[in-house]
């Protein structure tokens, strides 16, 4: 088993390298000189040469990539063009906010997803099952940015219960777990939780229905296992996969939070990405994408390892 | 039209015979296949391999049926696939009618025209998306026969295996029973007018009554088309019924080869004897009292040293642990056992 884990970790390294390569290449994708997006068109040749030197555009691509990776490993992701502050700092601040949001959203999605999924699977075939299936299909199909807007319309504009945008009175720098701040979290978190809820509900339903249909469960019941016993048994068998899916969904939320953060003006990584794109702030763009992607890769790795620890059969496969 | 096709087939049969009736149709020498085990190996440790087939020699004579028997895991199916070149051998050579397979004299495609195989799983052997006649006609089409003629040949073969073309030709595999599908597989194998057919547990998955019908069909076809069979099975009764000679395999090696009746009446190898005594008898007075074969089932990854059978052999001696037996002739069979090897050091062996 240890060998499997080691191999898995070692295997992640070329993936991370590949991811870094893609992140690096992104900036050079757009046709034309990357410098064009940084400087105004009437900049003097001197200034152009200076900037080129500063950003290293005058060196060969492999050289640029190597030095970029080297610096990134040391925590230096460059300097933001728009704010002139170090990219790493900006990203770390934003990641904290996104994490708060994503973790809460995942937790909500997991709890309700498991609930719906379990109920649907347990009463499979009945109207409860169909109702739960409908809910999960809706969850998976809804455009979450639109849902966010609807939530704002209903709960903020019409009912006035909750604030529409922002992360709270103290901003992103100083988070307090009190209602004054938490109320800003409610709408975005619920909106974000819908898709994971739908996916987890589907997964859990399939697993539960599958287990209950297996003959050995019948055998256990015949031997006198109580309903509670069956329940524990189901939980034991579905937990690894459900947790794995939850972990993956957390990763997706972290990486894909940009749309909801835009709707709610939540100062997280997605929001940062948004401004980086529109201000053509290349170092910030590269840096944030790199961090987010790496997060996802590491998260996948952790999920894989945890799943193997919970279900040793995977390691032998 | 049908008679002309038949005549043409018969012509082709004799025209292809290269070495004459005395030359074995198939000669296998030193055939070996080791499968590397996936994963788990840390750097530095030697890779573990599964010795599925470990140095096998035998011959198949023209016009005979060679039965191949052995327990699960002895390497029968792997040998079949090695013969068909569906998997590449780790070592060894296969010589067909005097010409090495894969050489310039006998390119692979040509070899595959002359040797065909019928698999065990009748449903998995047929493409569910193709009609029966399309499945059968595929082979000839690959070798350049026109579509019209391929289909005509397919229909003719369907009739020959007992499935009326008008009703069956345009059906799909899932609409047929297991026995019918296996007939289709046989027809498909014959579509290329091969000289040899390898039957890998071809009747094992069928009900007994259907099995009998298919066996009879196989024997009729063999006579009609002058075929040579290699018949792999774990069912000893069936093998005895259909085979001229029988080869017994154990853990990737050949234990014994001999004429069917001789082998069944007077087996030389202790393993063969144990196998045969494990066949239940119909005679209530003749019940099997003792367990014929004791000990752990064989492990192809880590085979026992010396003679592979020695841990379970009732007549094992100390020398069996050290020396691997060679195949020697004894009466009408050839056996790989130290008992029959002169001067091997086994207490029951004759001196050199």
């Amino acid at each position, binding site marked *: 088993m240890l060998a499997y884990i080691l191999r898995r970790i070692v295997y992640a390294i070329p993936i991370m390298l590949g*991811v870094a390569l893609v992140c690096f290449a992104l900036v050079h994708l757009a046709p034309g000189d990357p410098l064009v997006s940084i400087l105004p068109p009437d900049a003097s040749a001197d200034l152009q040469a200076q900037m080129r030197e500063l950003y290293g555009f005058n060196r060969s691509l492999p050289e640029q990539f190597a030095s970029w990776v080297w610096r990134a490993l040391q925590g230096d992701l460059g300097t933001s063009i728009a704010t002139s502050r170090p990219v790493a700092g900006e990203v770390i601040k934003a990641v904290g906010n996104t994490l708060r949001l994503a973790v809460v959203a995942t937790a909500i999605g997991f709890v309700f997803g498991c609930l719906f999924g379990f109920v649907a699977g347990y009463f499979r075939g009945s109207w409860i099952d169909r109702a739960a299936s409908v809910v999960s299909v809706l969850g998976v199909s809804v455009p979450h940015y*639109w849902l966010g807007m609807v939530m704002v319309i209903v709960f903020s504009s019409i009912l006035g219960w909750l604030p529409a945008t922002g992360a709270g009175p103290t901003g992103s720098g100083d988070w307090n777990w009190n209602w004054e701040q938490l109320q800003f979290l409610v709408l975005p978190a619920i909106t974000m939780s819908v898709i994971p809820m739908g996916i987890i509900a589907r997964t859990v339903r399939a697993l539960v229905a599958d287990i209950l249909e297996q003959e050995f469960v019948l055998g256990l019941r015949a031997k006198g296992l109580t309903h509670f016993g069956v329940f524990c048994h189901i939980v034991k068998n579905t937990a690894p996969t459900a947790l794995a899916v939850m972990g993956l969904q957390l990763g997706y939320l972290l990486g894909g939070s940009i749309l909801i953060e835009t709707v709610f003006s939540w100062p997280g990584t997605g929001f940062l990405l948004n401004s980086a794109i529109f201000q053509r702030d290349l170092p910030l763009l590269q840096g944030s994408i790199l961090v987010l992607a790496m997060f996802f890769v590491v998260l996948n790795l952790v999920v894989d390892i945890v799943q193997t620890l919970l279900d040793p059969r995977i390691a032998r496969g | 039209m049908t008679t002309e096709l038949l005549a043409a087939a018969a012509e082709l049969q004799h025209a292809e015979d290269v070495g004459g009736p005395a030359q074995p149709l198939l000669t296998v020498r030193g055939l070996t296949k080791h499968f590397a085990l996936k994963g788990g190996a840390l750097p530095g440790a030697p890779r573990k391999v599964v010795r599925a087939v470990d140095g096998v020699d035998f011959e198949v004579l023209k016009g005979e049926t060679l039965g191949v028997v052995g327990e699960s895991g002895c390497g029968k199916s792997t040998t079949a696939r090695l013969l068909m070149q*569906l998997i590449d051998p780790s070592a060894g050579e296969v010589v067909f009618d005097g010409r090495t397979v894969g050489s310039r004299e006998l390119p692979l495609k040509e070899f595959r025209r002359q040797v065909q195989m019928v698999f065990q799983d009748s449903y998995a052997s047929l493409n569910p998306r193709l009609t029966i006649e399309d499945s059968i006609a595929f082979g000839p089409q690959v070798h350049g026969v026109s579509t019209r003629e391929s289909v005509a040949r397919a229909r003719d073969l369907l009739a020959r295996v007992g499935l009326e073309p008008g009703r069956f030709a345009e059906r799909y595999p899932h609409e047929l029973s297991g026995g019918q599908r296996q007939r289709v597989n046989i027809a498909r194998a014959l579509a290329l007018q091969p000289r040899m057919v390898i039957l890998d547990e071809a009747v094992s998955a069928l009900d007994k009554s259907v099995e009998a019908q298919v066996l009879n069909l196989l024997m009729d076809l063999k006579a009609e088309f002058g075929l040579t069979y290699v018949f792999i099975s774990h069912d000893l009764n069936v093998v005895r019924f259909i085979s001229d000679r029988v080869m017994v395999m154990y853990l990737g090696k050949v234990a014994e080869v001999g004429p069917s009746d001789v082998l069944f009446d007077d087996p030389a190898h202790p393993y063969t004897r144990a196998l045969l005594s494990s066949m239940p008898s119909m005679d209530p007075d003749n019940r099997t009292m003792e367990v014929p074969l004791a000990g752990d089932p064989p492990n192809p990854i880590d085979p026992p040293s010396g003679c592979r059978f020695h841990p379970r052999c009732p007549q094992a001696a100390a020398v069996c642990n050290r020396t691997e037996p060679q195949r020697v002739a004894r009466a009408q069979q050839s056996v790989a056992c130290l008992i029959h090897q002169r001067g091997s050091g086994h207490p029951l062996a004759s001196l050199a």
Partner: protein
Amino acid sequence: MSAVLSPSAAAVEPLPAQRSRGYWASVWLRFRRDPVAVGAACVVLLLIAIGIFGPWLAPADPYQASMLNRLKPIGTSGYPLGSDELGRDMLSRLIVGARLSLFIGITPVLFAFVFGAVIGIVAGYAGGAVNSVIMRTIDVFYAFPSVLLAIALSGALGAGILNSLISLTIVFIPQIARVAEAVTTQVRGRDYVEAARASGASAFTIVRVHVLGNVLGPIFVYATSLIAVSMILASGLSFLGLGVKPPEPEWGLMLNTLRTAIYVQPWIAALPGAMIFITSISFNLLSDGLRTAMDNKG
């Protein structure tokens, strides 16, 4: 030695009298019996029809702005679904917007299906080193969350329809290729492919005759399940300002420009998203129905 083989041996089980059905015919029959799937299919067809015939169906000119008539509520005469922030008729913009929204949603999946299937089938059939190289490369792209990759690529390439089509296609190719490789590897291990190899057929022939027919179905079903995601993502890109540019009517873009209006005319602001929602559900249900219809054997 052998018994005489009589024709009656084959006639033991009587066969059904009618012509045997092909695979897709039986899939269609099963699909037809599923009311949800059929309903979803009708909605999808309706939406596609609106997309194609949009400009002729729209009651007013979707580009015609009118500063006096901005943000009129639903039900105003001349503006059945209200007007947007520039005074344009919402109903017309929604109808004409269907064309672009469906286009940027479906096209990437189409291209990804073609490229992804080819890559996956080649990797799956070839096996060995070729497979490893191809799949490891795919894994690198798979290591990105789709939304992030789409936005990153779009952001890097710049705004515009073509760029968002390219970035979405790139996002979906790895997913389809993975499925294609998995299915092809499975089919390749089946006995009938072995039998085909044993007949001496070339790899190309085997793929054409035996593999494609068995593999394209599942890949296609998987691709259809991606359409809903693609639509949401494509409209999402426009929502962020990365896809379609104004004044083109497109549902995602409309959501963006109407955001400021949610306090004035909340329900009008929500309309374009509702269209995306309806389209997404329909495609999802359609794809689910298709998968169920294809699942049963025979």
